């Protein structure tokens, strides 16, 4: 079992139902941290092996594991 932070994008036509989609994700062990309704994204964490199932949920268009960023000063 490996838990990862994820970002989940919901389909444009499903954005009004983003809270229902969040509930469906929680059924697969998604720990919901934030709902970014204006850009249609849920953030939180989930078990790595559950990500394909979350991706197949109606209204979910992308699931990505969190990346690290850095300022681009040379």
């Amino acid at each position: 079992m490996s838990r990862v932070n994820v970002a989940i994008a919901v389909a444009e036509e499903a954005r009004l139902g983003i809270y229902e989609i969040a509930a469906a994700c929680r059924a697969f062990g998604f720990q919901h941290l934030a709902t970014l309704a204006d850009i249609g994204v849920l953030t939180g964490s989930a078990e790595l092996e559950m990500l394909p199932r979350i991706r197949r949920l109606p209204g979910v268009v992308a699931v990505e594991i969190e990346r690290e960023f850095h300022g681009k000063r040379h």
Partner: protein
Amino acid sequence: MHTGRQLALLRSGLGSSAARMLRNAAGLRMALSSDFGRGFLRTPLAPGEGVLFERLGAALLCADPQQTQALAARAGAPVLMLEPERYVRAHSLQDVSADASGSMPLLDDTPSGTWGLEATRTLTSRYSGEGVRVAILDTGLDLGHPDFAERTIVAQSFVAGVPVDDVNGHGTFCAGVACGPRVPSQGPRYGVAPAADLCIAKVLNDDAGGIDGNVLAGIEWAVRSDCAVICLSLGSPVALGDSYPEVYEHVAARALAAGSMLIAPAGNESQRPDTIAPVEHPANCPSVVAIGALDRRLAVASFSNGGLNPDGGEIDLAAPGICIASAAPRPALYQTGSGTSMAAPFAAGIAALLAEADLFARGARLRDLLLKSFMALPDPPRDVGAGLVQAPQ
């Protein structure tokens, strides 16, 4: 030290017709650089003569004072800026090691503005970004910096437990280039859009590192705050052949639809000429404008990543990215830096000028306008995209 000749920056899009316009305006006998091949610099210019660099939108002139005055005074003339040509030394007191050698003169800061503002034609722009909101998603801002004392600033931290104040300097630098004041408390002007309203989102910690959750939350906040321009001077390396991240592409497309354009740096992982790294995430999203860095000869910077991956992994535009002066947190107040992080805020500031010039230019329309605001460069599109981003006049 000046050579006695002049370097003219011309209105964009004139091509070879600029030669005729310079002849009509000041009686200059003009030749085209394309007619000389690589030997034109060995050809001395006689008084009253000039060479037009069609692809650069620039000309080298040997004009007398009357001709210079005619070029400066004539309404609708092709010349935007006329500067004395400078001698360049290989070992000056300034650090020129990061600038490529070449035939172009080395641009430098002047009392009126940094070299980046001159190269992007910001100093002659009639626009200031007034009425336009620009979001800087970075390490925050020194909210007590004297150069930002009179500004409308909304700030929020998305880094848990860390205030928005910038102790790293990266965010203050980027905010300074995009939206620094017209008249700083010290030194030359360094900011592109001095009247824009600033929305500062701290999404990177004080070591200039961050994670998706904070960055996405910052984008959401900026979109909700009606920011026409969102500058993310941050990135995460990708491998050759990698596709763009789907979540960010959805986010960027939605931001465009909501009237907010995302701009991001190409990344600094190249070691040219030996190694060129691909454009990073999130600049590799098709809906994000990707900015490469130029040196003071307007050649691609040695560290600037290239458009190697398809489907969004291209460079869209290039901007000044070496020896850039801007703001620093107190007590230093000012700093000089290099990187594609320093280039992206030039494009962000110019986007704010374009948004002021056309009140209906938001989202995709503003992006299209920005992508058409360039001066062609000799380096290939893989490295500089369409060319050097230019301010509206």
